């Protein structure tokens, strides 16, 4: 017997009201495919091109009470919509990087300062966090970026200008850079 939509919605609202949720998420359509967008009480904690896998990872990282609560991600989703519509160049939503280890977090926080439409090399980003020889480790940190698009790892390229790689696939990296009018 299928649960009525209204009852399902009331349960989700009650769960939120009683603060029983570790991670709230919703799905969003975008020019780079369906995205999972997830938030904790601290802020945006995840954007994923692979929603199903992301659910399991969120449960491990933030706690198993992961629940779909589309309203909770409205603010983030609106900023993403504006970005994809070419009406937003910087994101204002707070982020939650609490499970991210220190080196990766430093790299991601520095990455957040790379402006819309500009490129930076892995080596240069490494140098900016005081680890000039750690270009490869920075590459790994970008590969595990929990909040792509908002933390713009698509703006990081190889020393020779090649796109190198992207956890969401090179095609998406190209799409994002073209959307920003970056020289690719």
């Amino acid at each position, binding site marked *: 017997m299928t*649960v009525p939509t209204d009852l399902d919605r*009331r349960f989700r609202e009650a*769960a939120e009201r009683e603060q029983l949720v570790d991670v709230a998420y919703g799905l969003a359509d975008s020019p780079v495919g369906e995205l999972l967008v997830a938030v904790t009480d601290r802020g945006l904690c995840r954007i994923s091109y692979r929603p199903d896998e992301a659910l399991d990872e969120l449960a491990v990282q933030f706690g198993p009470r992961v*629940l779909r609560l589309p309203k909770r991600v409205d603010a983030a989703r609106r900023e993403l919509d504006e970005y994809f519509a070419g009406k937003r160049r910087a994101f204002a939503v707070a982020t939650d990087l609490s499970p991210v280890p220190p080196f990766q977090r430093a790299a991601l926080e520095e990455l957040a300062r790379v402006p819309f439409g500009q490129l930076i090399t892995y080596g240069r980003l490494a140098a900016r966090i005081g680890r000039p020889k750690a270009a490869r480790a920075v590459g790994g940190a970008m590969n595990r970026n929990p909040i792509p698009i908002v933390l713009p790892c698509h703006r990081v390229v190889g020393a020779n200008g090649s796109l190198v790689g992207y956890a969401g696939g090179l095609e998406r990296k190209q799409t994002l850079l073209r959307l920003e009018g970056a020289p690719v």
Partner: protein
Amino acid sequence: MEAPPIPPFERFYEEHRDEVFAVLVRRLGRQRAEDAFQETFLRALRAYPKLRHGAYLRAWVLTIARNLAVDAVRRERPRVELDESIELPRRPAYAELEHLTDRLPPTERAAVVLRYAYDLPYDAIGAALGSSEEAARQAASAGVRRLRGARHAEKELA
């Protein structure tokens, strides 16, 4: 075999919500089933972080639902005889006592089943029953005492 990990709550909820709703509608009718449905999954959500593994989650959530249904019926019609049957997967160590647990009061039965058949910790059982860890421990122990008595009586008769 290693116990499965605890799934994200959304997946657990989507997997079991329709069956839980059907059980509650059957027992309580449509209107009252809706309240009990919400309370079932809120209880599950409260207890969820205390689970140690992802095994027997179906039996667990159906036990929560059944207990709420029993409470709801009892509130309206005191001392009515209830159909207590919910199909639980059998485990060998427990199977020989299972037929006896039908005679236990609902709370004791739920505590015994969740503790000894499904190996849940007392705090998760307490949350499932809407009581405390200590109350769950007492209910399970009272249930076991009652079972021992019943078993003894059965042997005497045989």
